[in-house]
């Protein structure tokens, strides 16, 4: 059996979405910026996609900028605001659990002389609002906090952050890559000025992202070239991907509540089963509002990569919060920011469920996982010390 539980990393392209995209990869190839007859269908399709996305978000089509990824949208937002508002100040507030698209961009801005404050989080990865209030200064130009954390699923209090930002006339950017199409995102109602997301997290195509830039917020470009996206993001328009993103978003939003309920139930079932069968595990951020499909589990006395690879050999795809599987040997910055002991942080696995997962698959994962954990623990000196001391 092959079970895909890495939906926070990327999702399978929906078949229906693929069918809607296909003509724009084959039949209608005219450059959407051209004036001749070959551009009619592509220009119309691009406008249609923009309107669909704007409608869903409750914003105006000219506030939507298509990008090539969520990371690019994040980069454009942070660098753009830094540039447009540098005469007002050079202080930016963010959190300690942001995605690398934010974290590394801010680090780059720090090198350019901006001052960055990283807000702490509690044990459930919730951003500390009191720390936010204290961090605000006269020269703060931007607050950027993610809507939901990609590793543990915690949904951040963006409504409250928006109120605080507004009271101090600070621009508020939200990285909604993990929430778009999963829970309601309404930038205007919430008071969000800039919002980024990408298509492939809700069964749309890879290589397309989106940035909502509220009219009235000063714009500064970070990419230069042609006049696509109203001079804000140059590059020949990827119409097929825009159409795909819009179609996928429409479909995801239509099933949002039902799918949230279904995935929550499946995840709760998974968690209750492994808690029954596997000793010494911790489910992270279990008691706060979190994404329906995300389950972050710490298997004490083990290292994550060995669990990930053992599962992979049995056909199960997950992701590890342990750095051992990346180029960086530190444990995940999110887990460490939550105060998880580094020796346990290494043993954390993220199971992220999606709309194609079934109960039968979860049963297979529970059985397989139980065997794998027992095998790896028999090898682990830490586990044997723990058992010996008991």
């Amino acid at each position, binding site marked *: 059996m092959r079970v895909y539980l890495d939906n926070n990393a990327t999702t399978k392209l929906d078949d229906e979405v693929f069918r809607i995209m296909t003509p724009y990869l084959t039949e209608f190839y005219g450059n959407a910026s051209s004036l001749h007859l070959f551009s009619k269908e592509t220009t119309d399709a691009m406008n249609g996609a923009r309107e669909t996305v704007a409608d869903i978000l409750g914003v105006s089509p000219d506030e939507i900028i298509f990008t090539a990824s969520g990371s690019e949208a994040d980069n454009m937002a942070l660098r753009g605001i830094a540039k447009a508002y540098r005469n007002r100040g050079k202080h930016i507030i963010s959190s300690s659990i942001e995605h690398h698209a934010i974290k590394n961009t801010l680090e780059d801005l720090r090198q350019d002389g901006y001052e960055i404050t990283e807000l702490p989080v509690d044990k459930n990865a919730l951003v500390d609002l009191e720390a936010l209030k204290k961090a605000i200064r006269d020269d703060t130009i931007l607050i950027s906090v993610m809507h939901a954390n990609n590793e543990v699923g915690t949904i951040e209090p963006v409504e409250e952050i928006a109120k605080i930002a507004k009271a101090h006339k600070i621009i508020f950017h939200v990285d909604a890559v993990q929430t778009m199409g999963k829970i309601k995102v309404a930038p205007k109602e919430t008071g969000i000025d800039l919002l980024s997301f990408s298509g492939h997290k809700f069964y749309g195509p890879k290589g397309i992202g989106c940035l909502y830039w509220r009219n009235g917020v000063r714009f500064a470009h970070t990419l230069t070239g042609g006049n696509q996206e109203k001079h804000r993001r140059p590059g020949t328009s990827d119409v097929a991907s825009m159409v795909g993103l819009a179609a996928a978003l429409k479909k995801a939003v239509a099933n949002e509540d039902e799918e949230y309920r279904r995935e929550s139930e499946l995840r709760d079932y998974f968690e209750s089963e492994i808690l029954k069968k596997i000793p010494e595990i911790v489910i992270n951020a279990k008691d706060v509002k979190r994404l329906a499909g995300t389950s972050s589990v710490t298997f004490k*006395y083990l290292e994550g990569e060995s669990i990930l690879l053992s599962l992979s050999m049995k056909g199960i795809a997950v992701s590890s919060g342990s750095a051992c599987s990346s180029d960086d040997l530190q444990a995940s910055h999110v887990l460490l920011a939550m105060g998880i002991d580094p020796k346990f942080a290494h043993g954390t696995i993220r199971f992220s469920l999606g709309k194609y997962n079934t109960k039968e698959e979860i049963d297979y994962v529970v059985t397989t996982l139980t065997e794998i954990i027992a095998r790896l623990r028999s090898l682990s*000196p830490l586990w044997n010390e723990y058992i010996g001391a008991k």
Partner: protein
Amino acid sequence: MQYSEKVMEHFMNPRNVGVIENPDGYGKVGNPACGDIMEIFLKVDNDVITDAKFRTFGCASAIASSSISTELVKGKSIRDALQLTNKKVVEELGGLPAVKMHCSVLAEEAIKLAIENYLSKKQPQS
């Protein structure tokens, strides 16, 4: 990052897992905060390693490195076993990704620490 078949084979079917009660040589290296701990147990007879066992907390390459190192020193004289290098471990595993080289270093250190432990116990008697 992909592992060689040999690494995966040793990871899924590690050789010499376990402990030796009252070992002649014992070495433990690594740190849980870094995500790796290796424990090596040696049984030595007439300066020849007659048995080697290990327990490892760590990633696939840490487990595979421990497994292959115990294989490499078993049946060897202490003098020959001391020649084990991390380079040899990597070679025998069919290569390791660059970020995982430290696992082979850890294996070399653990084996050497276990041998030193044997030698230090031996000295007062001779």
